């Protein structure tokens, strides 16, 4: 074995050590996150309640629990919320890493294809105008509006960029910007004519992103969409790697990018649409987490994707903890926290010498 082989092994040893460390940190953070919040619940009791809920009553007893409301807070409010934070953090980082490869642009994020503005328009419309009297729509109104808006705009972006030939990455980005601007102006129009201060406030709040509406009944759909997406894209590392080379080189390596580009865009739109429908717009995570991981592990997607998922989950877990505890008795929109933490991190990465987008 030459010294180079040893070095290569050493590098992958380092990688796996970090991955295990991240998984450990996520577990500890999740437990910690469940135990703290606006209502002070003793750590021992929150553990007992959590064990009891997770094992369906086999482990952990509720005998020492002082207050019945603790049970509800832990099992019905905080636990689904922690799961939401983890899943959405994973999903946003996943979509960010994929979109950056798809459009071959380090500035891409999950919202780049006009998904954000489409979802905003849908949500704004649902809040201020409504979809009529149907029971289904009035219950699901905002989520449905946001999801529909996200999907419709990303299809529009796809179609627009495919007019007159192949959908190149530049055409994709430009179409995303154009459709985004169009949706933005329609949203403004709806807000301008709405005579509804309460509604406008909730539109603003929605646009800042929040995990406050997390609940167990929403977990299955989110979990299935995000986890399936993760599993799928983890297996696509070869295609994602050749995407970095551009169309021309990818064809000579046997991969027709325009097909994969469309497929990936539809999949990320579905994942992002679902996340946006449940939690609003949580900015910066999908942009910064893949970059952070590139700086640490390089651009090879075989390593980048698992790392991005774990770092993204951990990042949003902690953003959520901060959003609940930073200001007493206030549940801050999580989008504010992610941007406040994210921007300095990003500035550090840009200023730090030698960051080459993953070398």
């Amino acid at each position, binding site marked *: 074995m030459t010294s180079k082989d040893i070095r290569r092994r050493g590098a992958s040893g380092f990688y796996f050590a970090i991955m295990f460390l991240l998984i450990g940190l996520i577990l500890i953070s999740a437990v910690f996150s469940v135990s703290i919040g606006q209502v002070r619940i003793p750590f021992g009791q929150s553990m007992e309640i959590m064990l009891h809920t997770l094992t369906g009553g086999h482990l952990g007893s509720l005998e020492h629990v002082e207050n019945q409301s603790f049970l509800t807070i832990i099992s019905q409010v905080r636990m689904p919320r922690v799961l939401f934070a983890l899943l959405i953090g994973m999903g946003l980082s996943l979509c960010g890493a994929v979109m950056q490869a798809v459009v071959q642009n380090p500035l891409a994020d999950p919202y780049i294809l006009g998904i954000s503005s489409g979802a905003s328009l849908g949500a704004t419309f649902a809040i201020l105008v409504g979809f009529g009297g149907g029971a289904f729509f009035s219950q699901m109104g905002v989520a449905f509006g946001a999801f529909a808006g996200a999907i419709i705009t990303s299809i529009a972006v796809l179609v627009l960029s495919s007019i007159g030939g192949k959908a190149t990455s530049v055409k994709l980005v430009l179409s995303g910007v154009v459709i985004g601007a169009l949706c933005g102006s329609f949203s403004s129009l709806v807000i301008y004519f709405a005579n509804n201060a309460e509604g406008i406030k909730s539109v603003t709040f929605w646009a800042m992103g929040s995990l406050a509406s997390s609940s167990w009944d929403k977990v299955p759909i989110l979990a299935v969409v995000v986890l399936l997406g993760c599993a799928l894209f983890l297996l696509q590392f*070869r295609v994602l790697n050749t995407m970095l080379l551009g169309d021309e*080189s990818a*064809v000579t390596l*046997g991969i027709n990018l325009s097909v994969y580009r469309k497929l990936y865009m539809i999949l990320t739109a579905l994942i992002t649409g679902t996340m946006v429908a449940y939690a609003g717009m949580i900015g910066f995570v999908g942009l910064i987490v893949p970059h952070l991981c590139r700086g640490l592990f*390089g*651009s090879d997607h075989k390593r980048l994707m698992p790392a991005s998922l774990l770092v993204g989950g951990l990042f949003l877990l902690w953003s959520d903890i901060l959003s609940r505890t930073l200001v007493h008795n206030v549940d801050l929109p999580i989008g504010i926290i992610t941007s406040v933490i994210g921007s300095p991190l990003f500035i550090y990465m840009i200023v730090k010498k030698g960051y*080459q*987008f993953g070398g």
Partner: protein
Amino acid sequence: MELTAQGIDIRLGKKDIVKQVSVQVKAGQFVGLIGPNGCGKSTFLKGIYKSLVPQKGTVFLDELDVLNTTEKKVSQRLGVVGQFNEMSFDLTVHQMVMLGRTPHKKLLEADKQEDFAIVDEALARTNLLDYKDRSYQSLSGGEKQRVILARTIAQQPAFMILDEPTNHLDIRYQLEILSCVKGLQIGVLAALHDLEMAAHYCDYLYAVKEGQVFAHGTPEEVLTSGTIEALYHVKCQTYQNPVTNRLSFAFGL
């Protein structure tokens, strides 16, 4: 492996860029494609390696019908070194060369010991072993092009297409790259700008003008004053270089 392209027509927008071009490369031959900028050399090559779809014509690699076969199957036999292109993201040299194994891999197949050996051999052939862990973006143009060549060698192609591979490179890299490709002893079709290089390395030449084959034959037959003047609109005298004993050119406007 033998390449036969017959009657290729390529239209981009409303313009016919390549008109009825036929080219044949016999097994192990190094065939050059010369002609002025914009004459359709690159477009023709793109039509062969499936980056563009020709309106008419057939391309065969031995028995393989290139235009009606999947990209993956074609890329297992055909390697391409293109013009230098920029990337927004970075990879290490080793990762970059490892991408050359992509055509031979199933979706979930891991990189095996065999692949590492092939990549190491490709790096050795291109004198890049010491560059393994360097970042691709930090390399000079000539070094980057060598990495691309190493990637194509790791692809283990039975035929190689070069599209002006030595553009912007200094003389040492030009010689290194062409000699390395020549040493592979596989069929090669290369678009070249430097006529002396073409004369030295190629067994056979096709001169392309305005999307059509203007002349073809051995370098001595094609590279005459008359043909060069007709192709490039410059005055040209050919002579035997007294030092190298090879065909040389003196140009003037």
